[in-house]
């Protein structure tokens, strides 16, 4: 059998008719949810409820319910914040950066990843507001004209966060919405107008599609707009976690005060983001019969990115140690030795094994293309990346300059409850998303199906060669 090596295999398996694509993507929105959906929803809502209860108690009594102490002033809340912002990186990376690099395989996963970005940032955004001691005054963090004639402090990285995260959220949201417009129009057009439900849905989709008519002029503007937004979003992917890393890097704490943090945080964010997209998509493609669009080949490509970013993260771990030793600064070197061999060594080694060792299995093609296996690895990567933030936040604070002020941080059930709640919130939003909007871009998929684009060899050339 001859394989044409110069030719990229199709990103969509088979050669589905455009109608089939429409139907299979839109199916979840037209049918009533089944039991599996309600079971999943029940689970995520329970988790959300646990989180709400824990948070409510924390608001009522005070942050003392959490494990934070003196010297470890930041605990789960900040860890979760950094974790969720990190998760939010994959979407915009996939849809913007890979778009600019003309990576067609992104088509099947871009929409879903973008959605995840929005929800992850929505989850992350909660934490800076709830982690403050007086959340009812969290408004002070925003620069708005007020009667106190007080202004915010622009030298504080926490304030940079406010801008970085809100900008990132806004741009990602706009990008996501623009991409959705042609699909909303498709949904509008496919709906009958007979029942009351259909009428309501049709109205909603009509409004959301902003009068899209699939005209050439519309497409031309759309493509240009999409390109511009992709260009606009690209630096933001890099900037948001860079700025989040400044929360640590700008401080003077040993183990935080390092220049490697910005690239290291971005790599880690992409790493965990891909793992999370991987996890969710493996389930989605199965449940919604989208295996021919989100192909194994796509998953494998994502795994390759996971190896790459995993190696970057591993490099950063090593480099941190090297620099700590090379600096000759006693406190700094101790901070790193203490990470690996101090009281939090367990957390450090969980982090290293999940983030550095686990992805190495993906060098083997058989494992890289084994769906259950890659699911497990992706879960491990997420665990590892959560622990990375734990290690960074907690170990440095727990043993800093004065040995007299060292202390061990132990989370409480309220911390854990809020962490569970954040997953509940994220997945609840995600589940609603899968039933209300197309999780795969209908328009873009149609564009990458074999034969949908003109070629030099004529319309039928590929199919003769490939199939």
């Amino acid at each position, binding site marked *: 059998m001859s394989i044409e090596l110069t030719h990229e295999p199709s990103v969509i398996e088979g050669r589905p008719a455009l109608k089939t694509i429409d139907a299979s993507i839109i199916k979840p929105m037209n049918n009533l949810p089944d039991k599996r959906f309600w079971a999943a929803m029940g689970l995520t809502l329970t988790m959300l409820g646990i989180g709400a209860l824990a948070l409510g108690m924390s608001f009522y*009594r*005070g*942050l*003392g319910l959490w*494990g*934070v*102490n*003196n*010297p*470890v*002033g*930041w605990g789960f809340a900040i860890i979760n914040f950094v974790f969720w912002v990190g998760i939010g990186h994959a979407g915009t990376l996939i849809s913007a950066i890979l778009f600019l690099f003309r990576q067609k395989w992104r088509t099947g996963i871009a929409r879903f990843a973008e959605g995840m970005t929005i929800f992850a940032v929505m989850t992350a955004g909660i934490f800076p507001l709830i*982690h*403050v*001691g*007086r*959340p009812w*005054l*969290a408004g*002070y*963090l925003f620069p708005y004209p007020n009667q*106190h004639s*007080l*202004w*915010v*402090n622009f*030298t*504080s*990285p*926490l*304030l940079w966060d*406010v801008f970085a995260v809100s900008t990132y959220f806004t741009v990602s949201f706009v990008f996501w919405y623009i991409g959705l417009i042609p699909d909303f129009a498709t949904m509008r057009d496919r709906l009958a107008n007979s029942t009351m439900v259909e009428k309501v849905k049709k109205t909603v989709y009509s409004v959301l599609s902003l009068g899209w008519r699939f005209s050439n002029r519309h497409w031309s503007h759309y493509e240009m707009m999409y390109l511009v937004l992709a260009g606009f979003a690209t630096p933001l992917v890099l900037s948001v976690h860079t700025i989040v890393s400044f*929360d640590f890097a*700008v*401080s*003077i*704490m040993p183990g935080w005060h390092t220049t490697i943090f910005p690239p290291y945080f971005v790599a880690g964010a992409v790493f965990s983001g891909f793992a999370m997209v991987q996890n969710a998509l493996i389930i989605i493609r199965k449940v919604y019969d989208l295996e021919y669009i989100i192909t194994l080949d796509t998953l494998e490509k994502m795994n390759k990115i996971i190896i790459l970013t995993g190696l970057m993260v591993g490099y950063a771990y090593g480099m941190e140690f090297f620099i700590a030793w090379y600096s000759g600064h*006693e*406190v700094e070197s*101790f901070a790193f*030795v203490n990470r690996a*061999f*101090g*009281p939090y060594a367990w957390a450090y080694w969980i982090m290293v094994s999940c983030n550095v060792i686990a992805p190495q299995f993906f060098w083997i093609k058989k494992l890289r293309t084994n769906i259950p296996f890659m699911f497990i690895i992706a879960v491990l990567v997420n665990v590892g990346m959560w622990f990375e933030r734990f290690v960074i936040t907690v170990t440095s*604070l727990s043993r*800093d*300059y*004065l*040995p*007299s*002020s*060292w*202390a*061990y941080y*132990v989370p409480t059930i309220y911390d854990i409850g809020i962490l569970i709640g954040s997953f509940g919130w994220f997945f609840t939003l995600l589940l609603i998303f899968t039933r209300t909007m197309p999780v795969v871009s209908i328009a873009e998929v149609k564009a990458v199906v074999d034969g949908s684009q003109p070629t030099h060899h004529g319309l039928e050339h590929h199919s003769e060669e490939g199939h």
Partner: protein
Amino acid sequence: MESLKPKFWKSLNQYNQKPESLEAARNEFVNGATADFDLNALPDKSRRKFLALMGASGALAATACSDYHDKGEIITYNKKPASVTYGEANYYASTLNNGTGVLIKTREGRPVKIDGNPEHPISKGKISTVEQALIMELYDPGRLRYPIKKSDSKLVLYKDEMPRSEWEKIDTQVVEKLNQAVSEGKEIAIVTHSVISPTQNKLFNDFSSKYPNTKIYSYELFSDSQRRAAWYDAYGQESLPAIKFDAADVILSFECDFLGSEGDITEQIRMFSSRRDKDNPENFNKLYQIEGNYSVTGAMSDYRIRLTPENQYDFIMSLAAEIVSKGKSALASEGLNTLLSGYNLKSFSEKNQINSKVLNELVHDIIAKGNKTLAVAGIMHPKPIHLAINLLNEVLGSIPNVYDLNTKLELQRPLSSDKEIETLISNLNSGKVGVLIHFDTNPVYHFPTDSGYKAAYTKAGTIISMVESANESCEANQYIIAVNNALESWGDFKPRTGIYSLQQPVISPIHDTRQKEAVLLNWMSSDVNAYSHDIYHKYLMSHWETDIYTQSNSATGFREYWFAALHDGIALISENSGNEALQFNINAVNFNKFSFTKQNYTLILKPSYYIGDGRYANNGWLQEVPNPVTKSVWDNYAMMSPATAKELSVTYGEDKLNRVADMVEVSVSGRTLKLPVMIQPGMADKVIVVDLGYGRTTIGEIGRNIGFNAGELMSAKGGISPWMFTGVNVSKTEGQYELVSTQEHHSLDEEFVKDFHLKRHIINEYTVPFYTEFRKKYDAAKIRLKSEFAGDEEAYKKALKSEKIHLLGHHEYKTHSITPDRVYSDVKWAMAIDLNKCTACGACVTSCNVENNIPIVGKEEVSRGRDMHWMRIDTYFSGTPDAPVTSFQPMLCQHCDNAPCENVCPVVATTHSPDGLNQMTYNRCVGTRYCANNCPYKVRRYNFFDFRNDFADGYYRQDTLELLNNPEVTVRSRGVMEKCTFCTQRIQESRTEAAKNGRKIKDGDVITACQEACPASAITFGDMNNPESPVSGLREHPLGYFVLETISVKPNVTYISRLRNIVAEENHGEH
């Protein structure tokens, strides 16, 4: 005619100039509108009547429904008293119940802080940690609010509401009982603590003549009874002279914790520290601590010798023998050689493995310094050891030098002997005691369990407890007389020869209480119902008029004399101590050779550093001041050496999650107690030390069931001494217990984290010889550089600094900033702390707590690392587990010029002031905790809860405690960061004062609370921009350093390196 018509008109009548219309226009108001308002004249349904009635009934309803009830005592300042100015504090000199002279700060008639009385010759303006915190006792919600007749044994004192009794009823009944006891020939027993008040003593005498069967018993859980007895045997004097710790060049302290828990520590710390002047290292005293315990005095010592208490007698005698054998004895007595035969220092030291270098040094020093050497033994030591100490001091010839023979430590009546207490108990048992009065005492808790007092006292005909708050001795059915706090009382105290200290009330009794002396006095009067609050005041004055004033040879009249004494809080009268001609009776020491056989474990029971004999257990501030050595709070425990712990296979704090301790069972001749273990490096092996004063069961809610009552191990028969036992069995037992400390300590052999305080230059220390040598070179360099850089002050300073760094063998760290340094053109506040003087007593911590309204958080919150102290004392150990070297460091906000907390706050809640303070704006703070994370000194404290609600179910919300707060300092709410402010409220007050006087604030105007309290005067505060100020001198001092200088945050707190008076091959500060 036309022109007369008005141009503008309201009606045709006006236009036509009708007369009635002209008349109406002349009146401004319509007819009737200006008539007087008469409610009754108005029609029934008029609007005005309705509004008037509404208003009146509303006001009436509001008054009737409000909760205000006139309590009578509260008088608002309708007319401002002449002595009170709103917002300005008044200070009154007074005396606490232990005889300490104090100055009480009151605001609008409300006492808010207790400080030392500068006029007082003993405390000299300083008071101890405990005394600082006593302000809380006044407002303690657990205080009794009225007298009680407890006749229902089912009622539990601390749980149930006790029925209120009328004073008149109680008084009448008690007098009946007293008369009945007299007529039946039964004893009236008054159990009191030591009597240091002359007037109180006179009252007891008068009471005894009114009721002839009265017997007064006085006791203390801890006293210098053993030392007194030894002094009596050796010199035939009843009372001890005061010890001059500042007169000794060398101090040999045998288990004597004179800087921590025994004696008048304020005075002792001052005396000790006065010989630690960094600028006069030749004059440094040298402290040798020989102990089995690890006390704070041991931590401060230059050399420490681990030795179990039993062996210390032999050691003292061997030292005496060594001096005699070298022919250096100042005592020439025939009996001396016989007495010391058999003692040989060499064989003793070999047997007990005493470090020969240290021992040689010691022998060399005591021979060289001779009569400038003070040997002193701890009060827990038995009489024979104190006798041996007397002998050693005689051999050294130091008695006239190191004892203030003109000043006796006075007691108005000697403490009751064990025999007298025994008689009291047997009298109680045989029903011979008609009336038993606990005169502000708690004998049920204090007397050893096996004395049988607890069972016996219930057999007294009538029991009366005069107490501020209910205690264990109030459990039986009895009269519980609620008495005044010291701040509500009149009194006088004579702690030493010629020193009369006066007590005056600074607030009228908050509750329905009476002064205990007044109650007794009232029972002596013919008509008990004619009680008046000033009876004891009058009694006191008349006693002074007849007895004390007459001795004073004062030229003024009595009233002037009295008011002058009251104003100063003190009257000094020259008296003869009768101590001048001491005759040492060597035969007193010459009893059968005294030797303790070391069996099994040795137990030492010692007073707790802060809650004393348990009477302050309900004072949360004191429970939460960390033990200076172990840093633990809210507990007592069995302290033991690491080797002993290993032998018993017990551990402490191995688990990182909880600082859990294994439990041991300590048993002394059948008396047992289970205690958690605390491992303390440096203790002698097989020695167990336990603090007394814990495990109170009947007390306010703060102190109830905190720790373990080690009093249960005491015996009426005593051990080696009442507080020392040998032949003690200790074994590991079931269970574990969480001990909480404010500082994590690491095992000294843990290489991973060893000596970080030295490696990181948190603690800089040198030896006296090194520094003396350095100083010579440094002074020479000064002269050389001065001429080299003549006129160029800046260059001179820079060169001098690098010279200093070079001579000390340090590195110079150069840091560069991209922003220009801020210029402080006016005053700039700075602090300096002299680590030579600081003895970690904690007075600064409590003073800060009281001044700044710092909440108590409780044991559980401390265990989670949430203690709120703005000022803390860090303890670091280096060396080996057997011979640890301790370094103390008071740590507070360093007010860095480049404060790392400031730039990270997103809401500008922490900023820098033009006078150099790092300040917190509580209102602005949202609580991100970023500032605390970024603080390298970890001095910022966060309100994780509203501790005023959260601590002990809203303890702080109870009515009286609200009076405790300093009105000048904001009470912080939940979610807010706080920290040391350099007492900014005091700075503001001084600034206002200076402005009123038309000048600028200057150095010396402000004294911070910690500085004010420090008995050692280790803290200096002032304007560093003033080159003449003490603090700017200290910043330039060659021993001055900043903690963590390398990170360039530019702190404004300078530490003066500690000099250890040791001979060492290597300098301690170098690494």
